[in-house]
């Protein structure tokens, strides 16, 4: 009844002889996997790879030939007997490029430094243990070049939940796929099932949805149907004006805010203009953060615009724009203390407030409401 992170280890940990035995047995049903083809007529065996093709082999010759092409046998053995769900297997094979790279090239790369892939901000490097089992190094992509010894080592996939909770500055990350994953940690040696579990804690459901998309059956739920499904305090979001849906996507769903690739639109026939993003894994419906934000915007969009008259110098107008830009792009921390040439510099903002705000905080003394409130 235990979870089985060791399944693949057991499978791949078999000796060469055990793998050849398994291949002999499998020959009865025929094998055709990643270039390896094996069959039997009941008396003799046929063995083929892109490099060699033999038939009429007795068992001994078959074993000798299999030993020469042991990587093909190991590759078949590892993937056939790993007992992984389809999405996990597809993900692990994608990491090492199993569908594109021939076995000899792939095995050479796995042995020499490994094969690395990015998944959001994660960097996953597959390598080969002596017995052909895959092992994975998992870390922040920005830590790609660092020694394991310089990073905080982890082995338990459950730790990923805690590594993903706060950003570098200790602020809570409610959105797991925000590009704010902190650095400095490493899982240097994960077996395959543990790798997938860790990835699923960093970026929940991304592997499952990526696989569904590749299989052509991603269940996208567009804005309209998602909004109509809401109840309770979120029931109002279906009143959000269509043009505002565009602004929601631009505000929340672009790569700078979320690494999922947006596949939902206003509805199936009405695409949104906001960039979908370049991420590997898809976003199949507006998430709870987007719905919660949209609820606020729905309320705010009920207001009618009003004309206000402010007196600002051209530089002050540009400064207001610079402040909005800096906040929207999360750049306020980058603006140097003494760089008063930056409109969003704190001293500049304080000067503007001192000059243009009245005691109630009204810009240029202009009240927000007509009644002067």
């Amino acid at each position: 009844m235990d979870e089985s992170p060791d399944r693949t280890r057991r499978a791949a940990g078999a000796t060469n002889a055990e793998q050849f035995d398994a291949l002999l047995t499998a020959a009865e049903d025929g094998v055709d996997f990643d270039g390896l083809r094996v069959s039997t007529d009941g008396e003799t065996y046929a063995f083929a790879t892109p490099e060699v093709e033999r038939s009429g082999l007795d068992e001994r010759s078959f074993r000798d030939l299999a030993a020469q092409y042991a990587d093909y046998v190991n590759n078949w053995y590892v993937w056939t007997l790993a007992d992984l769900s389809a999405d996990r297997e597809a993900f692990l094979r994608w990491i090492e490029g199993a569908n594109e790279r021939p076995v000899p090239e792939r095995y050479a790369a796995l042995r020499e430094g490994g094969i690395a892939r990015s998944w959001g901000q994660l960097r996953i490097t597959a390598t080969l243990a002596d017995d052909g089992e895959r092992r994975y190094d998992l870390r922040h992509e920005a830590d790609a070049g660092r020694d394991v010894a310089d990073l905080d080592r982890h082995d338990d996939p459950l730790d990923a939940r805690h590594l993903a909770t706060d950003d570098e500055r200790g602020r809570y990350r409610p959105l797991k796929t925000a590009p704010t994953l902190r650095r400095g940690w490493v899982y240097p040696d994960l077996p395959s099932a543990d790798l997938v579990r860790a990835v699923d804690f960093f970026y929940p459901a991304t592997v499952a949805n990526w696989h569904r998309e590749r299989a052509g059956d991603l269940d996208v739920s567009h804005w309209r149907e998602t909004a109509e499904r809401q109840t309770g305090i979120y029931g109002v979001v279906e009143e959000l004006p269509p043009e505002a849906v565009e602004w929601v996507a631009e505000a929340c769903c672009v790569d700078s805010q979320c690494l999922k690739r947006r596949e939902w639109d206003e509805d199936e026939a009405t695409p949104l203009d906001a960039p979908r993003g370049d991420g590997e894994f898809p976003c199949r419906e507006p998430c709870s953060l987007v719905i919660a934000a949209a609820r606020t915007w729905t309320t705010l969009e009920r207001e009618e615009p009003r004309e206000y008259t402010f007196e600002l110098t051209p530089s002050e107008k540009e400064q207001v724009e610079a402040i909005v830009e800096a906040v929207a792009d999360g750049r306020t921390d980058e603006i140097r203390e003494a760089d008063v040439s930056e409109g969003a510099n704190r001293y500049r903002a304080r000067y503007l407030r001192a000059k243009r705000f009245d005691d109630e905080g009204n810009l240029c003394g202009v009240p927000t409401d007509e009644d002067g409130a």
Partner: protein
Amino acid sequence: MSQALVIVAHGSHLNPDSSAPTFDHADTIRASGAFDEVREAFWKEEPSFREVLRTVEAEEVFVVPLFVSEGYFTEQVIPRELRLEGWDVDEWDSDGTSASHVTLRASDVDKTVHYCGPVGTHDAMSDVIVRRAQSVTGDPDVGPGFGLAVVGHGTERNENSAKAIHYHAERIRAMDRFDEVEALFMDEDPEVDDVTDYLESDDVVVVPLFVADGFHTQEDIPEDMGITDDYREGYDVPAAVDGTRIWYAGAVGTEALTADVIVERARDAGADVRDSAERVRERTGDVAGD
């Protein structure tokens, strides 16, 4: 056939402590080996209710809501978001606190889903409230000379919320362990603000029936009871209010024994947990020692 446990909880966009008890209880149950897989899912965090079922491999999934009462979430939101086909609240045949489980299919995955009643209304939750009293006083025999207040949010949109509080207060009263047991509420009478009016004992343990600590349990209730003037400064345990020593326990859902109730919910729905349920109990068994 392999079986998975999915614990569904509210979570928060603002407060990481909201999901912490869910993770803790999931870890306890994982370590017991009771299920092939254990996964957490949240209304406000990820994986979402919408996507959690596709992240588990098992064909048989036990979904246990880590919520305190039957109501909007257990009756509408969770079944809708999990896409439980043919869900009808009447199948629970509940009086407001008696929902056990119903077996359905989810439309986006090829799995059997045993959808369980919430943790908060399970009979075993009464024991967790008592355990919480033991933990906060550090006394396994706490009871004589003590009053116990079980605190709930109140009715708001949902009368079942108060029913769950009354249900456990009644059950604990019947244990004849504490000198007095009262159900109190944040936003309706009898109000927790007046705890010392409703309980006469010199020592009163106050246990909020909440899943996680947050705004209500760490800010509102302590200030309302007067055990602190400013929640940011914390509060003493016990704290003296009008001559009564208030032993404020914080959210009951943070008590380790809650993991037990989650397993019991799944077992009631047919999960084969055998001796691993005992292992959960062993792991959650120490009073004030863990």
